[in-house]
């Protein structure tokens, strides 16, 4: 293990030197097995067969595919991108070894090195490498203001389910999770091992025919994560999955399903980086959260897909459907996202507040630079009585980028006493970028209380000069001011992510001034 570690350290240094424009722009040399280009029923059968899926799953996919063929791509978003040729992409790829790794020792060193290079999951890589996580829980770590130390100098526990291209390659902490009764595995595995749970909940939050991209995902999803937290269980660690796109022209169709039974709690972290590519890469993920009585899910994302180069060439097209269903009373969900990557982002993590007294929260930081475009926001659907929602959105546009906050707050007829608070702040850096706010509000119940605050400001030259006069470099000053602007959201992130997110803010805005 020590040898592996040293090898990685050396490799990391070399990589750091080699990388310039895009910090995470590299690809790992593992031969891939991929399905032929294009999309048809045979491809779907191929994917299903590769994953050794039961007949019901194949039927589900085929039905989705049939639906998809009748649908057309949504064009209402404030986004411009060339026509996507869905027949000109690969829909399945896996590392050649193709195997599931029973233990961490079986994971190829290359993959472990890849983890190291990603930078973001550094601590998780340490966990994978056998650095014993200590008793300090991530929750404790969050309360510690100094990012350089955790209580007793120990690492918070994070369990990692790595999705390398389309196949899960490593799952850690299984034993401890098993003791708590928490199921944390790839969705393919869950389809085989817990078909009753998957059958019951898959598509119950985001129906097969929900929207063009979700339907596409339903037909071709490659892998993803499945989490089940039994009644009354507080998940003993933060769960974390890292996604990577590693194969040119391979769409990523991740599928995540998390179920929190009565009175349970789980915090889930999702983060991703992608290698530098010239081709546009399609990413259409679906995330479904089911929250039952009195349960809570905290879902945090740091999204850092390749945004394209400074001239807008390349970059990921990211069409994501994320939805949480607070299905029973007193359920709570909290989405926190830091969106810095992708050429095009289309994403509206939503909360269906069905149970009485249920609570939905959405905290978002979206940063666009150069030619990036983002149309993102949330939907809060208030169905139950005394349901509450809170939206804090911080958008930062720099370069020639364009950004739209699009949000819906909908209060249904029976939602007596519903409340929403929305705050949308936009910060512009430079004179060539754009920020738009499109808040939709529908209310059918007069008892609803809705508050909306919105601000748009420009990063001021005076503030920048003030910081520089005190000794900060121009880019450090921008990062400091922007991190200050985002504080309300950053503090909602688990500590593990907050530190990374602050660094990401700086990296994302490099070259945005001067």
């Amino acid at each position, binding site marked *: 293990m020590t040898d592996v570690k040293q090898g990685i350290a050396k490799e990391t240094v070399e990589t750091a030197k080699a990388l310039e424009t895009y910090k995470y722009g590299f690809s790992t040399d593992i031969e891939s097995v991929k399905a032929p280009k294009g999309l048809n029923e045979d491809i779907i059968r191929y994917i299903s067969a590769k994953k050794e899926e039961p007949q019901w799953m194949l039927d589900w996919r085929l039905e989705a595919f049939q639906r998809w063929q009748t649908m057309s791509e949504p064009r209402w978003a404030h986004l411009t991108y060339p026509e996507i040729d869905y027949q000109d992409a690969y829909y399945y790829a896996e590392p050649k070894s193709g195997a599931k790794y029973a233990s961490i020792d079986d994971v190829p060193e290359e993959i472990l090195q890849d983890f190291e290079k990603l930078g973001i999951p550094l601590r998780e890589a340490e966990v994978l490498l056998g650095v014993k996580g200590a008793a300090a829980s991530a929750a404790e770590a969050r309360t510690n203001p*100094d990012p350089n130390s955790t209580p007793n100098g120990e690492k918070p526990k994070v369990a990692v389910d790595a999705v390398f291209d389309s196949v899960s390659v490593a799952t850690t902490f299984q034993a401890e999770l098993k003791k708590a009764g928490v199921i944390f595995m790839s969705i393919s595995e869950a389809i085989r091992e817990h078909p009753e749970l998957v059958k019951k909940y898959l598509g119950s939050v985001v129906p097969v025919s929900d929207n063009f991209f979700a339907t596409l995902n339903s037909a071709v999803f490659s892998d993803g994560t499945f989490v089940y937290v039994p009644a009354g269980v507080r998940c003993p660690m933060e769960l974390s999955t890292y996604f990577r796109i590693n194969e040119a022209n391979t769409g990523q169709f991740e599928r995540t399903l998390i179920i929190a039974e009565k009175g349970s709690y789980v915090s889930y972290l999702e983060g991703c980086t992608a290698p530098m590519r010239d081709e546009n890469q399609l990413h259409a993920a679906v995330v479904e959260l089911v929250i039952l009585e009195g349960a809570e899910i905290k879902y945090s994302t740091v999204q850092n897909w390749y945004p394209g180069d400074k001239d807008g060439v390349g970059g990921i097209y990211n069409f994501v459907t994320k939805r949480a269903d607070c299905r029973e009373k007193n359920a709570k969900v909290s989405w926190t996202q830091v969106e810095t990557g992708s050429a095009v982002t289309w994403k509206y993590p939503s909360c269906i507040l069905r149970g009485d007294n249920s609570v939905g929260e959405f905290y978002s930081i979206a940063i666009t630079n150069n030619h990036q475009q983002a149309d993102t926001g949330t939907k809060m659907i208030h169905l139950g009585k005394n349901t509450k929602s809170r939206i804090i959105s911080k958008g930062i546009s720099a370069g020639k980028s364009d950004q739209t906050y699009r949000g819906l707050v909908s209060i249904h007829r029976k939602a007596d006493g519903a409340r929403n608070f929305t705050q949308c702040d936009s910060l512009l850096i430079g004179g060539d970028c754009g920020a738009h706010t499109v808040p939709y509000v529908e209310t059918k119940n007069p008892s609803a209380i809705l508050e909306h605050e919105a601000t748009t400001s420009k990063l*001021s*030259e*005076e*503030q920048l*000069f*003030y*910081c*520089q*006069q*005190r*000794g*900060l*470099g*121009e880019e*450090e*000053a921008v990062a*400091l*001011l922007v*991190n*200050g*602007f*985002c*504080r*309300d959201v950053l503090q909602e992130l688990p500590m593990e992510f907050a530190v990374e997110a602050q660094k990401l803010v700086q990296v994302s805005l490099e070259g945005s001034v001067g």
Partner: protein
Amino acid sequence: MLKIENLHVTVGESEIIKGLSLEVPAGEVHAVMGPNGSGKSTLAYAVAGRSGYEVTKGDITLNSKALNEMSPDERAAAGLFLSFQSPMEIPGVAVMNFIRTALNAQRKQRGEKEISAAEFLRFARAKAKVVGLSDTKLKRPFNVGFSGGEKKRMEMLQMAIMAPAFAIMDETDSGLDIDALKMVGDVVNDLRAPENGGASRGFLVITHYQRLLDHIKPDRIHVLADGRIVKSGGPELAAELETHGYDQFAGEAA
């Protein structure tokens, strides 16, 4: 020492500083006085390197280092501090975090070791007592919702902590009551003390009034009018200006 030779500064289309020369030797405090619009703040910004304040001619050196081509942060690392007339607010960034980040950025640029959070806190709390800022204020976002007087105290706190080689104080006295003026005097006099390295430190105090100079004894006073220094003299010049005003220089400036 700070040396300014034949400085010309243009803001937008107009020339504001029109051939200004000034030398402040190490260990001395010089005051610059002058009517509104004479170019006092422009001088301060140009020396600090603010963009939009274009030096079209002339040289600025600090302890023999040429500042002209340096970015504002490089000038700060070289030891230049500007106390702002209207200090900025920085939402979302706590006071102590801001000052420590800035101080460490300077130290890093000078090749010095960064100061640890604990060490900084001890040191900064002691200085905060001197300038009259409570611990609660130090935990708040930088200057957000602070009164004008508190913002000036924050400038003095930073000056005390950073202990710069040279400080320009741009109307630090404006809007301050008598107690606060005394505090400003205490901070400056502490930094001037020989045991605190005062012999190698210089100050340029920009002010309209003599009252600050009752607390900070200047070695020289310069009168700035229409972008030039029109008169220089000893401390007694301040009293004279207080009595006769700046009208006497109107003709010279034109």
